[in-house]
Every structure is written in structure tokens, then in C-alpha cells.
């Protein structure tokens, strides 16, 4: 096996061990267990142990399974799109803005749609910041406007134009029924309709967002859990400079 071929590790290389837990809409019993075993077989596993089967409602049984996954993948062939920027600090960022742009940059941020979660966008924008990393409002060279939550796309765009924003920051936490996708997309479409898309650096963020998803939806980058403000600022400055061709 070439050294880039990998599969799951239990306690020996390539043993393939995976733990699964799921529910089937059947009553518990030997037949249900057998069904779970067969089902996991269809998922490309072998040596399947249905170690636990538990009735959790009439006609529903929850299983815990350990099994060996069969496939391998070539790790060297795995490609992932990450937002490209050098992570620099508070002072370096302010310096860079002063030197290269020569005026404070301006941002608006909000949680759009009916999503009421502000903690994520606040962590990035509010003064106090997140994980000992100052929020964007604290940067002397950044004018940051945080509109809070439950903001409509219309309001957000209006504000962005009003403050001549360089970038728009959008947060989404509720992801049920793809509501984040819908909201993110709505904003992109409205901007596109008014020919404003290229005017702003567009950032998406939230607890189920990653860069790949954001880029796919038309944003410049996406940031998920654990993001600190200086990362966002670092990306922004890189990106604004790029837009300006500097």
C-alpha cells in the first residue's frame, strides 16, 4: 500500500474501525439487529458488530455499531480550498491599512433573515472580541458597523452603501431547512441585481459555515467556529488590496 492510502484507525494501522449510531423505524428484536447489520454492510463495511440495539419508541430502534470500513482514499489527492491570507496581528493590520490604503476601511456586518443569533457576529465585531483577540470595532483603522440580528438584506445593503463599506460581513447560525443557504443566496442575488457584487468584499460566517461553502455561494471567503477577529481582518486587508490591485 502506498503511504498516501489511508483508512480509519482503531488500534492498528488500517484496521478500518468506525463507530456508528443510528435509528431504524422498526421494532427491536433479532430481525431488527440483522437489518442493521445488513444495512451497514451496504455502507461498505465488513466485520460488522451491532453491539447495542435499544427500543426508543414504538417501532423505532436505535443501534450502536462497530465495523471495519472497506475503502481507502489517497490522502495526497485530497484538495481543500482554504481562504488564502497571512495571519497578521492587530498592530500589523492597522499599520498596513495606514500605509497601503491611506484611510480607515469601512465594514458593515449583520445576521440576516429571521436568525436572531448575534453572538457569532458580535465575537468578530464587538470591541471586546473573542478568545483574547480584539474585535474589529477596536481597530483604529477600521470603521465597523454591526447591525445586529434579524436584519433584512435590503437594510444591510442600504447601510453598506451609506457608509461606503469596503466589505460586508454576514452571519448565519440557524441552518435548518437550509435557511442559511437561502439567506446567503438572497443577499448575493440582490447585490448582483443591483450590480453591486464587485463593490464589496463579501464574507460569510457561522457555526456551520466553512470556506468551501461560502465560496460556492459566491462569497469571497467563509469562516466557521473558532475564528478570531484578527483572522478576519487579515483576510480583509489582503483581499481589499487585491481588489484595488495593490
Amino acid at each position: 500500500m502506498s503511504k498516501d492510502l489511508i483508512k480509519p484507525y482503531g488500534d492498528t494501522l488500517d484496521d478500518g474501525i468506525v463507530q456508528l449510531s443510528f435509528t431504524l423505524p422498526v421494532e427491536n428484536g433479532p430481525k431488527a439487529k440483522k437489518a442493521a447489520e445488513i444495512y451497514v454492510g451496504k455502507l461498505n463495511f465488513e466485520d460488522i458488530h451491532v453491539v447495542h440495539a435499544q427500543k426508543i419508541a414504538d417501532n423505532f430502534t436505535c443501534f450502536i455499531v462497530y465495523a471495519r470500513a472497506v475503502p481507502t482514499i489517497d490522502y495526497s489527492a485530497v484538495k481543500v480550498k482554504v481562504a488564502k491570507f497571512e495571519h497578521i496581528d492587530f498592530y500589523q493590520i492597522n499599520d498596513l491599512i495606514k500605509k497601503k490604503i491611506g484611510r480607515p476601511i469601512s465594514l458593515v456586518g449583520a445576521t440576516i433573515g429571521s436568525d436572531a443569533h448575534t453572538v457569532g457576529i458580535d465575537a468578530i465585531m464587538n470591541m471586546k472580541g473573542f478568545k483574547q483577540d480584539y474585535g474589529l470595532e477596536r481597530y483604529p483603522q477600521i470603521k465597523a458597523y454591526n447591525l445586529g440580528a434579524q436584519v433584512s438584506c435590503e437594510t444591510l445593503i442600504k447601510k453598506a452603501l451609506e457608509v461606503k463599506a469596503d466589505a460586508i460581513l454576514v452571519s448565519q447560525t440557524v441552518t435548518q431547512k437550509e435557511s442559511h443557504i437561502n439567506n446567503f443566496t438572497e443577499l448575493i442575488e440582490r447585490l448582483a441585481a443591483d450590480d453591486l457584487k464587485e463593490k464589496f468584499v463579501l464574507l460569510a460566517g457561522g457555526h456551520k459555515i466553512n470556506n468551501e461553502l461560502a465560496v460556492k455561494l459566491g462569497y469571497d471567503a467563509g469562516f466557521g467556529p473558532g475564528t478570531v477577529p484578527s483572522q478576519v481582518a487579515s483576510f480583509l486587508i489582503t483581499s481589499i488590496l487585491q481588489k484595488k490591485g495593490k
Partner: protein
Amino acid sequence: MPHILLKSAQVNTVKKLASSIADEVQQFVSRHSSVSVERTVLRLYGVDGVDSSGTPLPNAIVDRWCANGEMGGGISRPFIKAMLKSGKDAQQTARLIEEGKIGFDKLGDLSQETVRKKEKSRARQAIARLDSSRKRKAEKIRKIPLPVQPWRYLIVATGNIHEDVIQARSAVYAGSDIIAVIRSTAQSLLDYVPYGFTTEGVGGTYATQANFKIMREALDEASKEHGRYIRQVNYASGLCMAEIAACAAFEDLDILLNDSMYGILFRDINMKRTFIDQYFSRLICARAKILINTGEDNYLTTSDAIEDAHTVTASQLINEAMAKKAKLTDDLLGLGHAFEINPAIENAFLYELAHAQLARELFPKAPLKYMPPTKYKSTDIFFSHCMDTMFNLSSVTTGQGIHLAGILTEALHTPLMQDRFKSLSSINYIFNIARSLGDEIEFKKDGFITKRARQVLDETEKSLEEINDIGLMEAISQGRFANIQRPLDGGRGLDGVFEKGADYSNPVMDLLEKD
């Protein structure tokens, strides 16, 4: 239960301060009403259903009445006049108004005496309806007893009431004592109560009277099957607090989320509107014996659970004081608090015990609502499961009342059926193996736990003094709760607030306030 021995003089002081703060708000409340209070009166009189465009009739009627200008008098009198004019019941009268067959501008002359009499009798019927719900519930509990506390509270939130019923049944099978149907995201911002059963919702299922009924029937069956009375919860907070309270009462709900400030802080609803609405909604709850749950736990999702612990206590005291003004008795006060301390803090569990015990001793007769960790829940579901296990222990040890089940997938998604089962396995385990732990240990005299509880109470006292000085509305504007600032005239729903005229009439409220 272990004790922290609060000084009773200090307890009196903080309760008095809270009462004084509530008094000031109450003065404002009694001078005002809102469109949703008026719609509630219509619902209590018997108006239900929707018009041809899908607008709920209470909204359609109140809108017409508003359009007519003269709001200070309240809806009761003109509507009763319309009833007298039509000679029909409330529902039929409402239909006639909606169809334009009766106009508010031409109700004709009726003697004050006649109108007042009719108002009184309709109001009495309304109260009777609340009373009969109360009695039905008492009767059910007589037949199928309530389980012991802490009551295991599980949420269902599929968006589809029929799927919710499946989830609820499963939860009861696994040991749940209380089922809460979470509302669809942002329903609290709707200035009406949706009508009919619903199968589409994001993050939850719409609170509608029809949905209440479907769930109540399922839970009545489950109660019988499992030999313990299963309570049903929904959410009143938002732009329709009192209307939802009325609908809930009609369908024999047991518990409503009903906080005096949640909507203001977390939904950006105007504070005047909220204070007005919560008062009437609580009067209804008191009458129908609907236990209220307050939302102090939410504060700790935006502010720090150690640093701002006193804001929770202060808010509980204020919520209690306001609830008492709305005639809610101690046994109906599910004051909220939460297990939300950063698990990286050394001795976090001792802080949690101190906070939980403080709440327990400050409100000894209230069935406190205890919220599990949410903010520091990890996407590592195994770790999160440990956090919930410790929460379960804290709850049973300090004798909490309403135990919201912590779910191992809290940081991921609304619970799957199997998540709920796993959660209940932990709860059942802990409640059993540590059932009497609280009775068998003591907190060291002047030890860490006792001192911490006293410190929080000291900070609470200080904070209440300040709030009492500036007034609650100003305090909220300053961001004293949950680190969220809300201006006096900001937020949604202010346009539905109006000042009562000298001729304001709301005989239901009068009766609720009297008895």
C-alpha cells in the same frame, strides 16, 4: 437539601426592592393597552378562525377597529355593541364585522347599562372557560399523578406537528415528564397567532391552537399509557403573549414560557409593548393555572455566567414581583436559571452548585426551571454528554423543579429522536443514583459554595438598588441584562401600544384582577 443559610433580612430587602421596581412598571402598564391585549379579549369572548385572506379574525377585527380611530376605550365595548346589534354570538358577530356587514362606525345607540351588562356576562363566560380548563387539569392530575421533581423536560422541534407527536411519544417512552413544542424561528415576531395545524416550520413548529390540541391529545394518551401526567409546554413570549396564553388555556396547556423581559432583550420587541402584554398574559395564566417559565437562562448565552450571575438573580426577583402582581402563586413560578459556566474554569461545578442553591433558597416554593449547558457545549458529543451528566447531578442535588434535558448534540442540531433517548438515559441514571445526595451532604459553613452564593446575592442587592433608582426601563436601555441594550422606543410592536382612555373598558381584566 444542603443549605447556604441566606440572611433573611437580606432576602427581605431584595424582595422589597424587586417589588418596588415592579410597581413602577405596573403603573405604566395599567395606563396602557396593546392591540394584542385587545385581540386577546376577542379570543376570550369567543372569536377564532381566519378571514378569507387567512388573517386571524381577532386581528382583522382589531385592525378595523384601530382604523376607526378611537382606540382609548378598548375593543370590548364596541365589540359587545356589535354583538348586541347582531344578536349573534361572538364568532358570528366577528364574521359579520369582517364581511363589512357591521361597521364600528355605525353601532348605534345602546344604553351604557345594557352594554356594561352584556360585557360583564361575556367576561364571566370567558373566565368560566379559563376555570374549566383549570378544573379539567386538576381532574386529570387527580387520576394520573404528577411525577416527582425534578421534572424531565424535553423539546420537540421538527416543524411538523404530526412528526412532533412521534418525537414526543418517544420522549415520554424514555422518561420525559414534560414536552415542549419549540416554535418556528421568529414566530415571536409575528403580530398574530397562526391558525390551524401546521407541518412547515424552521427550528420548530408554529404555536397554534390547533397544534396545541393535537399535542395535548397525544400527551393525554401517553399519560395514561405511562401512568404519569405529562405536561405540555409552549411559548408565549413575543408579540402575542396574551393571545397565546388564551389559546393555551383553551387547550389545557400546563406551562408557558412567559418572561417579562425575554422578548425585549432577545427578540428586540419594544419594552412597553412587552410589559403590557406580559401582564395580561400572566393574569390569564394565573387563572387557568398555567405555570410560567421565565428566561433568565438566556442571559448567560450572551454574558458571562460567573461575572453576571447577579443579573440572573435580579431578573428572577423582578419576574417574581411582576408575576405576583399578576396573581401568580409560588407554585406557578418556573423562574429560570442555567448551568452555563465555562468548563475550563477550575471548580466550575462548585460555582454552579452555589448558583443553583441560591435560586433554590431564594424561591423555596417555586418549581425552578433549570437550563442545561448550551453555550459551552462542544461539537464533541461525547464531551457534551459529560457536561449534561454533571448538570443532571447539580439539578437533583439542589432540588430543582423543571429540568430541561441537556442534549449531547446541542452544538449541532435540534435533537434527533436518538439524541433525546441518550439524554434521558443520563438523566434517569443520575436522578436514580444520586436521588438523596442533596439530603446527605452539607456545604461547608463559610466555605467556597456558601461564600459564592452570598457574593451573588450581595451583587444582586446592589444591582437592584441601582435599577430601582433609575427604573427598569432605563436599566434595560443601559444594557443591564444580558449585555443587550434596548432603547425605550426601539424594537418591534410599539405601534400596537396605546394609552387607555378614561373610558377604557376590559371587563375580563377587571375580573381577573379582582378574584
